[in-house]
C-alpha cells in the first residue's frame, strides 16, 4: 500500500521550536539566535553587548560549541547566567537541545536570552530554535563574497552584522557591495556594521535590541 505521509522531515525539531517559542512568550523573554562562521566574533560581540545591557536587563546566554566551556566561561566572568551546550561534532544547535537546557534558567526573571550557535555558515540556518530574531555575524576578514556564496543563511536571518570594521583599512571588504548583495537576497534584513572590539557601531546594535525588546514583549 502507498501512504501519502506529506510530513516535514524536521517535524519533531519544529515542534520543539514551537514549544520553546511558547515558553519564551509566556515568560516574556526576548530570544536572539546568533550565527556565524567560526571566529567571526560572536562571543566578543556578546561580551560587549552584555556589558552594555546588563544594567537594564537580566540576561541569560546559551553557548553552543563542539567542545569546551571556554566561551561560557568568558560570559560567566561578566556575571551572566550561562549554560554551555557541547554538540561533540554536531554542526548546529537544534530546538530540542535548547528545550533541554531551558529549565536551567529562571525564564520568568530573564529579560533577554542570547543563543550563540555553532560556528558554521550553513547548517544552523536550517533550524528554528523558537527565537524571536536570528542574527548572522559576518566579519571583515572573511570577505564580502560570503553573502552571495551562502545565500540561504543570509536569507533566513533578520539582521546581518558586519563585525571587525576596525579592520576595514587593512583588508579588502566592500561594505556597499555587501549591503547591495544582502538586499537582493533578503530585502527586509537589517544591515549593521560594528566592531565588537572598539565598540564602533555597537550603540546601533544595542539600540535595536532595546527597541525590539519593547515591541516584542508588549504584544
Amino acid at each position, binding site marked *: 500500500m502507498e501512504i501519502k505521509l506529506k510530513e516535514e522531515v524536521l517535524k519533531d525539531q519544529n515542534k520543539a521550536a514551537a514549544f520553546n517559542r511558547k515558553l519564551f512568550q509566556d515568560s516574556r523573554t526576548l530570544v536572539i539566535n546568533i550565527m556565524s562562521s567560526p571566529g567571526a566574533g560572536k562571543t566578543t560581540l556578546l561580551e560587549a553587548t552584555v556589558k552594555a545591557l546588563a544594567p537594564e536587563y537580566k540576561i541569560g546566554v546559551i553557548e553552543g560549541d563542539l567542545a569546551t566551556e571556554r566561551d561560557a566561561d568568558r560570559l560567566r566572568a561578566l556575571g551572566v547566567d550561562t549554560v554551555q551546550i557541547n554538540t561533540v561534532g554536531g554542526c548546529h544547535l537544534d530546538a530540542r537541545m535548547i528545550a533541554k537546557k531551558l529549565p536551567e534558567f529562571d525564564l520568568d526573571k530573564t529579560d533577554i536570552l542570547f543563543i550563540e550557535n555553532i560556528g558554521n555558515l550553513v547548517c544552523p540556518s536550517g533550524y528554528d530554535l523558537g527565537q524571536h530574531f536570528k542574527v548572522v555575524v559576518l566579519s571583515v576578514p572573511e570577505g564580502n563574497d560570503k553573502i552571495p556564496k551562502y545565500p540561504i543563511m543570509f536569507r533566513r536571518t533578520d539582521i546581518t552584522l558586519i563585525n571587525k570594521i576596525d579592520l576595514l583599512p587593512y583588508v579588502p571588504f566592500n561594505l556597499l557591495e555587501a549591503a547591495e548583495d544582502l538586499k537582493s537576497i533578503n*530585502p527586509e534584513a537589517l544591515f549593521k556594521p560594528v566592531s565588537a572590539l572598539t565598540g564602533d557601531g555597537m550603540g546601533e546594535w544595542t539600540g535595536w535590541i532595546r527597541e525590539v525588546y519593547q515591541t516584542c514583549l508588549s504584544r
Partner: protein
Amino acid sequence: MHELSLMAELIKLVSEDAHHRGIIKVSKIDVIVGDLSNVLPEALEEAFVYLRPRVEAPFDEKTELHIIREEARAECRSCGTEFVPDYRIAFCPVCRLPTSELQSGETFRVESYEGCDEDGN
C-alpha cells in the same frame, strides 16, 4: 551539512508512521528535496545506503529511496514575472528590484512511502 542526522530523522519519521499502521516492510520512500533547502541529495542518498542495513525493520537492504528535486521558483510582486532565481533570491530579472518572493525550493518533506502489512497488503 549533516545529511546523516537528517536521514536518521527521516527514517524515524517513516518508522513511527509505519508502526502505527501495522506496516512491517517499507519498500520505497519518496522524499522531496528543494534546491534551496540546504540538503544535498547525493549526501542524503549516501546516508541512506549507510543507515539502511543498520536500522531495524520495517527497513531492509531492498528499501529504495526516491529523491524528487524541487526547483527554486520565485515570483516578482511588482511585475508578476516568474523565474528561477540565482543566488539573488529576491532580485527580479525584469524590474531589477528586490521585490520577488520564493514560491518553491525550500521543501524537505517525506511525500509518501510504500509498504505492506502482515497480510502482504
